[in-house]
């Protein structure tokens, strides 16, 4: 990186065509320390953070090896100045809990008060120790109960409390990941692809090409920002149940397409913690796709074109492709409620002008303009109905079919999913892990059950402080089986959902493996 030496240089100037480049990139001169923090810019603009809940059921986790432990005990550093009595005052733990957790974790009792902030180190530590479901997360990425490279070669990237960004972390086991989280207390962490070799070894390889991403879930990112030009209820980072409707529509439309068109079965939807949702398509066939196939799927699902200034954003080809046709059927219903009634998108004169712009018929436009001039604040539902009413009463110079198609395009413009497609197109794109805490809201990034997606309310998703309070407040009976901390909280249904999801994935994976083995045998017999 010669440019970094000079004051005005920019990396973009680097000539990309020197013959030697391929070679020089491959071998980095200094083998740097394992846990070196790479001072990279934020990977994504979105400053969402994730927090993970501790899963105490670590009984199967192998013993950590000494060599994997970071050399500096950052935990101690963070302890400084944090000896607020309110947090460290000890509430006695039930003995049974201590037993089961053994040496792996001895969570300090936490007392959450109204003053507790979800980013306090003590809160984060308790969260990782007691709530984050490390074990299911491990199984989810490992695709089998026995540790394998699927997990061990997977990149994790931590955002540390001081905002440093630590890339290319990897862990042989769930327990080591957990330990690292408890030590570093990342405000969130992201999951990248599985690489051809262990990401921590990437600098010791002779050839750069030996280190390359080989597998990752197909991911999607839907964010409310992309709806800002049509959302009227809130602005910026805030959301309400009304605008969450956009995300609900998007999830329904994308989910059905991924299942019916592409045949994917293991799709995990996750609340991003503030105002969006992520999807992780975990089928083996999806994980193994190269960038070209990812781009194809993204393009298949993308419909809206153009930015804010570009006028009509949907110009669907007719006849409608079956995927668009099906989407329209789903979205039409929401259009009446979520859009016309709740968003009332054409209430103002200026917004109504945009609606007129989307209609292809000058005669009809003029008639509508006249009508709305005398009643500018007519609700959107009425304005929408006016279109057909005036068309029927003779103010139509195009065919009814053309008008119908224009109206379909408008419905799609206001309802069709707006994906942040870049996220989906690259095998090596990192995405925030499920179950981490969003640093802006303190909410846990919980899975969304698509069967009840319409009932999902982001505003009732538990926050980390609330969950820890719930553990403290828990007064249930310890039965035969000793309860784990997450079972005492409102995180329980989410963890259970995730576990079922992972179990189904692993079950299928077993069969795939079996089939492949049989095919291998067949092949050998030839």
């Amino acid at each position, binding site marked *: 990186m010669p440019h970094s030496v000079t004051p005005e*240089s920019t990396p973009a100037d680097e000539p990309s065509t020197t013959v030697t480049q391929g070679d020089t990139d491959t071998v980095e001169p200094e083998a740097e320390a394992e846990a070196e923090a790479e001072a990279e810019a934020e990977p994504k603009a979105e400053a969402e953070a994730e927090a993970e809940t501790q899963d105490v059921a670590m009984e199967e986790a192998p013993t950590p090896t000494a060599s994997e432990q970071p050399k500096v005990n950052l935990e101690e550093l963070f302890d400084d100045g944090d000896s607020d009595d309110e947090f460290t005052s000890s509430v006695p733990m039930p003995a049974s809990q201590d037993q089961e957790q053994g040496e792996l974790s001895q969570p300090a009792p936490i007392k959450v008060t109204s003053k507790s902030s979800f980013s306090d180190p003590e809160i984060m530590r308790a969260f990782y120790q007691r709530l984050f479901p490390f074990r299911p997360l491990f199984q989810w990425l490992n695709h089998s109960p026995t540790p394998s490279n699927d997990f061990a070669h997977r990149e994790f990237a931590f955002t540390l409390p001081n905002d440093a960004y630590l890339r290319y972390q990897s862990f042989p086991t769930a327990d080591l990941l957990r330990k690292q989280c408890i030590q570093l207390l990342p405000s969130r962490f992201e999951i990248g692809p599985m690489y051809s070799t262990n990401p921590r070894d990437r600098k010791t390889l002779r050839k750069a090409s030996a280190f390359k991403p080989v597998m990752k879930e197909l991911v999607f990112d839907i964010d409310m920002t992309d709806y800002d030009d049509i959302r009227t209820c809130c602005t910026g980072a805030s959301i309400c149940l009304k605008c969450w409707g956009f995300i609900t529509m998007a999830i329904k439309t994308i989910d059905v397409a991924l299942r019916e068109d592409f*045949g994917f079965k293991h799709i995990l939807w996750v609340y991003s913690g503030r105002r969006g949702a992520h999807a992780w398509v975990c089928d083996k066939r999806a994980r193994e796709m190269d960038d*070209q196939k990812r781009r194809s799927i993204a*393009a298949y699902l993308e419909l809206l074109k153009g930015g804010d200034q570009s006028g009509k954003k949907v110009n669907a080809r007719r006849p409608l492709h079956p995927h668009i046709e099906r989407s329209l059927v789903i979205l039409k219903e929401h259009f009446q409620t979520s859009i016309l009634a709740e968003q009332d998108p054409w209430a103002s004169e200026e917004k109504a002008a945009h609606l007129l712009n989307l209609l292809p018929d000058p005669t009809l436009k003029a008639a509508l303009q006249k009508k709305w001039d005398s009643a500018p604040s007519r609700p959107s539902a009425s304005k929408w109905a006016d279109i057909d009413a005036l068309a029927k009463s003779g103010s139509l110079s195009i065919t009814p079919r053309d008008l119908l198609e224009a109206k379909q395009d408008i419905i799609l413009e206001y309802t069709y999913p707006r994906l942040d497609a870049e996220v989906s197109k690259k095998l090596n794109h990192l995405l925030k892990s499920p179950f981490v805490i969003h640093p802006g809201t303190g909410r846990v990034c919980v899975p969304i059950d698509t069967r009840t997606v319409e009932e999902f309310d982001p505003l009732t998703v538990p926050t980390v402080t609330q969950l820890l309070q719930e553990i403290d407040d828990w007064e249930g009976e310890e039965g035969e089986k000793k309860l784990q901390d997450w079972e005492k909280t409102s995180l329980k249904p989410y963890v259970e959902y995730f576990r079922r999801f992972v179990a189904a994935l692993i079950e299928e994976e077993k069969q795939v493996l079996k089939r492949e083995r049989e095919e291998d045998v067949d092949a050998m017999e030839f």
Partner: protein
Amino acid sequence: MIRHDYSRVDSKRRANLDYKKRQFANAEFQQQNYEHRLNFYVLPPTAEITLEEFETWAINRLKVLSELEGCSFRNRGPEETAEYMKGILDKYLPLRSDSSRSQKLQDERRRDHYSHFILRLAFSSTEDLRRRFSRLETMLFSLRFKNDDLRERQEFVRNLNLEWEEVKDEEKRELKDELHAASGIKKTEEQEWFKVDWERVPELVGQRKVLLRRGVAYVPQREQMSMVVAEFTKRLDEALELTARALPRLDEDDRLAPILAHLSQSFTAPDAAYSTSDANIDGLSTITANNIDTLSQNFPLCMRNLHSTLRENSHLKHYGRLQYTLFLKGIGLGLDECLVFWRRSFKLMTDDKFQKEYKYNIRHVYGDVGGDANRRGRGYTPYSCQKLLTEPLPGPGQSHGCPYRSFTPDNLLSALQRMGINDRDVLKTVKEDVGKQRYHVACNRVFEWSHKREIKKVKDDGSWSATDLDTIVHPNTYFKRSWLLKHLGEGNVGFVGESAMGGEEKMEE
């Protein structure tokens, strides 16, 4: 550049390679018979060829691939590309159909076969090269597929055994509406359909041109090409991976290693079409800082703009400085003279400031300082039009980039008029070109108009060939050609001869 750890190749594979390599190098004279014009390049060649053939055939194919890449950089449509490529293909890589009954048929196919495999060796060393090679070979294959004789093409496809499942009549009836809606084909049109895993037709999926059901794509017969092409790419990519792993063995043959290395080097910057030969203009004596004002008469608009901005403000911002320094380096201005040029041009600046803040950058561009890689590569390569056209647009106060792209039409026209372009038709057409975002076309048009007399002369007396007058895609080519044309008959000029490929030889150590 292809010396790697041998132990990475496992023993089983090594045995295999040795076998193939023996065949390749030991010349068991086994001529293959080429039944089809098109080739999926599954089997490597087995018969012996001379080293000279080895190199010539490869360079010819490389020329074709570079031109193809140029077409895609210039956003030429499929038809325009086919038109443009026709002459080049006929010259460098002819491949006739059976029906031509040509005597040379087998010979042409053999060259095609060998040159493909030679380049495969040369370009499998890095991921970047592989991806580019695969993309260009795919373009070449589709181009030929489209032109192929219909019957011969069907024959070829049938021979591939691609295992496409035909959609039975019953299912066709059942899915009638969806099939037609997805493909846009009219219901009245009789059509055969195939079922394949969607991964085999990613482009069609991305364009929503096929019906998808649980991972299966229903592809109409007429989209067959897209499937064949996808299959071609898939197999080539897999083969390239294997070749990459085999490379450590192959570079033991030290007759081939330098040739292969040279080939891949030439390929590294074909878009630039820049070579040190551009800096070596016959008849143009050593350039000094004092010459630049005069020489700027022969600069393309982008560089004239930088030059006049520099003269007006006695300063240029970073990107402009970089772009201009590279260009000047490209026309042959040496580092010392370049430092003089900038020092004098920044006349409002103290020596101290210049030394501290600017000198290093310029030296870096020349490869005089910086890391090993930079020095070895002799600094940066002058920017091509492609590069200038794909960089972010200049911001306020900046003047780098391509004026055809970044100027408003009015400003562009007055800049051209200042340059002496006063023909209304030319100006009007340039404006249209720019409206269609065909910036390089506009620039070439301006070039042609301002050199029309000279171009006519060299064409008429046959001193320049058509390739000497190819579309300009590099500011340094613009300069060189302009200078030569304006100095016809002065000494040993008129010879532009060397292709980009030949010229780059000089870049080697």
